[in-house]
């Protein structure tokens, strides 16, 4: 039996629920999932506020990442209400979604009524190509990519951890990367610090890192800080960044960074490495514990191997740095479960990952107080570390 397309549409519409744009307008911002099933090019010209883009051809494969709950309210729309009618039938009859409606008249009628249309900032053709694998993931898409491009991330150190983190964040299109490092590239760095290379031995690490980032992705703005971070400069350096990546190699700076970031409420993705072992956690002020909640006091010199040079498996900072980069991207996009309140312990030799819980300390000298109660002279208060490193020999 053959059926004309007009007849088919009529049959489909008789089997689905429809909703008028005036009703949809009332539901915007009320937690109802609004899905635009047009092509991504059409979506880019303007869409309903808060709508997610899932082109009809990808509907079955992507709807679950946008709307997991089969009993959720879902409104589909397209240009005129035809494609969304077919899509509504698929979700209802083939996939078991219980409350799916197709918006009559599509966005054309919506616009005719004079309702608000959100016009996404357009990615350039080159950016659409460069970030196409991000655009294909519903959790990221054009909106998420724009968040990455707008994000400002500060890397403390362009060393073992900072090298892979910087490269992958640059590749992901994080728009601004600040890099703090007062060191120069040394031949002994190159066993693990992959952002530098043999030709650049002797050049400042911030310059070498900038060159690699530029070559990888010209979208990224690099802000260089060829200084050692200390109590006198930390506030002006870190202010305005969305996320900070802690790859510093000493305790005084870790405590200083903690105190300053709690005061400014900037999340820190922290990792450390030694030998074959790595640790990672995310410290998001006031949502989870801070570094002082985890380690109230630094260890004594004999237990503090950061005092001198120590061996490390060359690939280990790669592993840990990329776990950091992943957490940074998640924080920027607001997706997944960042490692807040959890410490991950990676043992490269055993190929094991252990997780322990980290709690907020109600008596924490820093984060148990409001940000504006933390005074300048309290930042990074620490035992006389140089003296105690010297004592360790």
């Amino acid at each position, binding site marked *: 039996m053959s059926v004309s397309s007009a007849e088919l549409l009529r049959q489909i519409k008789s089997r689905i629920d429809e909703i008028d744009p005036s009703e949809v307008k009332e539901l915007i911002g009320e937690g109802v999932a609004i899905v635009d099933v047009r092509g991504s090019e059409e979506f880019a010209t303007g869409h309903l506020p808060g709508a997610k883009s899932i082109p009809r051809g990808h509907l079955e494969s992507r709807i679950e990442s946008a709307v997991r709950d089969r009993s959720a309210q879902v409104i589909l729309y397209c240009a005129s209400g035809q494609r969304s009618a077919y899509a509504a039938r698929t979700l209802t009859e083939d996939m078991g979604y219980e409350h799916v409606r197709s918006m009559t008249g599509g966005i054309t009628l919506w616009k005719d009524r004079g309702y608000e249309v959100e016009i996404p900032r357009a990615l350039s053709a080159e950016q659409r190509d460069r970030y196409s694998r991000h655009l294909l993931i519903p959790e990221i898409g054009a909106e998420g990519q724009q968040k990455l491009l707008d994000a400002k991330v500060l890397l403390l*150190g362009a*060393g073992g951890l*900072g090298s892979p983190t910087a490269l992958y964040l640059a590749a992901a299109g994080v728009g601004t990367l600040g890099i703090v490092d007062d060191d120069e590239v040394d031949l002994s760095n190159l066993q693990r610090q992959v952002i530098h290379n043999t030709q650049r031995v002797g050049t400042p690490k911030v310059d070498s890192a900038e060159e690699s980032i530029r070559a990888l992705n010209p979208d990224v703005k690099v802000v260089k800080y060829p200084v050692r971070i200390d109590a006198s400069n930390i506030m002006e350096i870190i202010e305005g960044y969305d996320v900070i990546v802690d790859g510093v190699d000493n305790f005084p700076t870790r405590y200083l960074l903690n105190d300053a970031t709690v005061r400014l409420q900037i999340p820190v993705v922290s990792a*450390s*490495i030694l030998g074959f072992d790595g640790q990672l956690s995310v410290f998001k002020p006031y949502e989870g514990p801070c570094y002082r909640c985890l*380690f109230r006091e630094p260890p004594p010199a004999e237990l503090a191997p950061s005092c001198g040079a120590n061996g490390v498996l060359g690939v280990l900072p790669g592993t840990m740095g990329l776990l950091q980069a992943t957490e940074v991207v998640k924080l920027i996009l607001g997706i997944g479960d960042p490692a807040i309140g959890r410490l991950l312990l990676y043992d490269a030799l055993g190929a094991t990952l*252990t997780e*322990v819980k980290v709690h907020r300390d109600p008596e924490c000298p820093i984060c148990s107080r409001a940000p504006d109660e933390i005074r300048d002279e309290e930042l990074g208060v620490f035992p006389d570390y140089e003296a105690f490193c010297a004592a360790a020999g």
Partner: protein
Amino acid sequence: MATIKIPPVLRASVGGEKEVSASGENVGDVLRDLAESHPSTREQLFSTEGELNRYVNVYLNDEDVRVLDGLDTAVGDGDTLVILPAMAGGR
């Protein structure tokens, strides 16, 4: 017997092992048993008053013993203790 995971900085004190076994009814007993077998771990774990040093975290399985009953936290056969001093290497 409980299993104790030894952090890198303490491995030299236990003959290079990553894990050792020790016995005891509670966390304090297990750690003291460790210190009996490997005396150089004692001052790294305990203060002169016998308290757990503030810079060392100890977890029973995945939970910080400080939010449980501290050194009095009961330990069963097959439990794992994780000893964790802070680490700062990044380079």
